[in-house]
């Protein structure tokens, strides 16, 4: 930042004094400190910035009895379910996006071995929205007429005092922990996301604790150069983990593409229990962390995921003296 700030003491113009102390730590430390057995977790991200690195560390640390909430359980929860971390899943669409069913999830549900609680997508994000704003419920014009209402007693209704009509409501969701992966953040946890923003912001505000993982830690000046992009304010955040490729095999807009090959491979891996166990042993338990995990791929595959750059047109905030 180049402004000559009269309102900020020049002698305290460091990250530590302006936004509190640095919260940077390793993934191992962050998960061990802030995720507890039995917690309700929300690993956020709709197709984009899915925090796979954090999920793998949760598996490695053998966390259990977790309640896993996500609009789209996706491969990330399929892996955690297969590894035995989950007691229950709260969700709205369970699939391998663009590929097929979510096999580990489906097998356990069909066998009656996994509790589920189900909403529509709008229901899931409205639950987070209520939780994020301190409301006990959120009203929404959906659900009505579907059999979901019969199977999920948490979906209720209120009578609108203006129209006299019933309207469906869903209860607030306030996870114990949200894990949010962002493209860039500063050391105190001010996180910026661009591209598909999913439900990350609502999940962060709704949760009791937030673990922020980031493609890169940048200086506070970069964050302050564009305050409109800061979706996660640092004071919500308990831990900041710098984890490049932390969303692979999903993607980070501008950093890397979705590794579609893995989504296709997962169909075969997850169909076969022995192969699935072997995959977990090799790719999760067999590595120390994300760096070792990424190093196991052929470099040509890694390189093929990196896009050419296309930058946003800048905007001028102006210097107001």
């Amino acid at each position: 930042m180049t402004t000559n700030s009269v309102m900020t003491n020049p002698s305290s113009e460091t990250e530590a004094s302006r936004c509190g102390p640095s919260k940077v730590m390793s993934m191992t430390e962050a998960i061990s400190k802030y995720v507890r057995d039995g917690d309700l977790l929300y690993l956020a991200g709709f197709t984009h910035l899915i925090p796979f690195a954090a999920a793998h560390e949760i598996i490695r640390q053998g966390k259990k009895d977790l309640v896993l909430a996500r609009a789209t359980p996706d491969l990330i929860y399929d892996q955690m379910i297969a590894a035995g971390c989950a007691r229950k899943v709260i969700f709205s669409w369970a699939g391998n996006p663009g590929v097929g069913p979510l096999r580990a999830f489906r097998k356990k549900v069909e066998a009656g071995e996994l509790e589920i609680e189900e909403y529509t997508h709008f229901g899931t994000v409205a639950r987070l929205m209520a939780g994020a704003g301190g409301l006990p419920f959120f009203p929404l014009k959906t659900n009505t007429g579907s059999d979901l209402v019969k199977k999920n007693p948490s979906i209720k209704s209120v009578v609108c005092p203006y129209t006299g009509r019933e309207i469906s409501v869903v209860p607030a969701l306030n996870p114990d922990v949200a894990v949010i992966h962002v493209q860039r953040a500063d050391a105190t946890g001010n996180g910026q996301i661009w591209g598909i923003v999913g439900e990350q912001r609502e999940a962060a505000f709704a949760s009791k604790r937030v673990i922020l993982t980031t493609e890169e830690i940048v200086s506070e000046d970069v964050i302050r150069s564009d305050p409109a992009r800061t979706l996660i304010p640092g004071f919500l955040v308990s831990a900041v983990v710098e984890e490049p490729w932390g969303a692979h095999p999903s993607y980070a807009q501008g950093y890397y593409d979705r590794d579609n090959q893995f989504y296709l491979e997962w169909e075969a891996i997850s169909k076969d229990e022995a192969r699935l166990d072997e995959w977990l042993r090799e790719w999760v338990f067999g590595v120390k962390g994300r760096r070792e995990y990424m190093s196991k791929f052929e470099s040509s595959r890694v390189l093929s995921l990196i896009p050419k750059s296309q930058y946003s047109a800048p905007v001028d905030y102006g210097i107001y003296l």
Partner: protein
Amino acid sequence: MTDEREYSPGEMMVVSAARLLEDGDRVLVGIGLPNLAANLAKRLHAPNLVLFYEAGVVDAAPARLPLSIGDPCLVTGAVSVCSMFDLFYLYLQRGLVDVGFLGAAQVDRYGNINSTVIGEYERPKVRLGGSGGACDIALSCRKTLILLPHAKRRFPEKVDFITSPGYLGGRSEREALGFRGGPEAVVTDLGLLKFDENGEMFLYALNPKATVEQILENTGWNLKVADDVKVLDPPTDEELRILREELDPNRVYLGRLD
């Protein structure tokens, strides 16, 4: 080179769906056939179509065929991108979306859709993906277009589970709940089905290669047939050219030509 007169069932479905879109429509599209249909219509008779994707993207200009609903190619160069909440709240629930595409594991006589479970909910024979945004789309768009292959088990008289309400037991039931819209058409690999004044599905038109008998055999109830049942025009050269050369050159979604 392929004979332009030959076309796959997927190509016919895409063309049939594309022709149902009107210029200026705001359309919520999913990946796969709906994406191809919407983009085909936009090149031909509906240049002012506004395309939304469920991941929160408005008016995308992807440089490749998107392979998932949140493909990064949908974002680069799009007009606007918004949160999931905004998409469902500001666009869908506000009533700004004219047309929503829906898939289905099962669809019944009144256009109710099941994409949740085959068998009982608590003891599923097959556990499917669930609603996702489908129920939300079904209840908030001005009209929905349902795409699925025509097979008896997918067209039961009553679905095992209503994931996304159509007309429930008839148009009046849906209206009584205060929801507008409802299913406009069902596009299958055999024909085009619409809904009568009571909200009951009927056979409106046949795909060029299909017969009424074939459709009745593949439907789980005594399907009504329009008195003047039409035969749809096969895909035109231009429709096939755009699909094959521009939109899905690797035939990821168009299927095999055989």
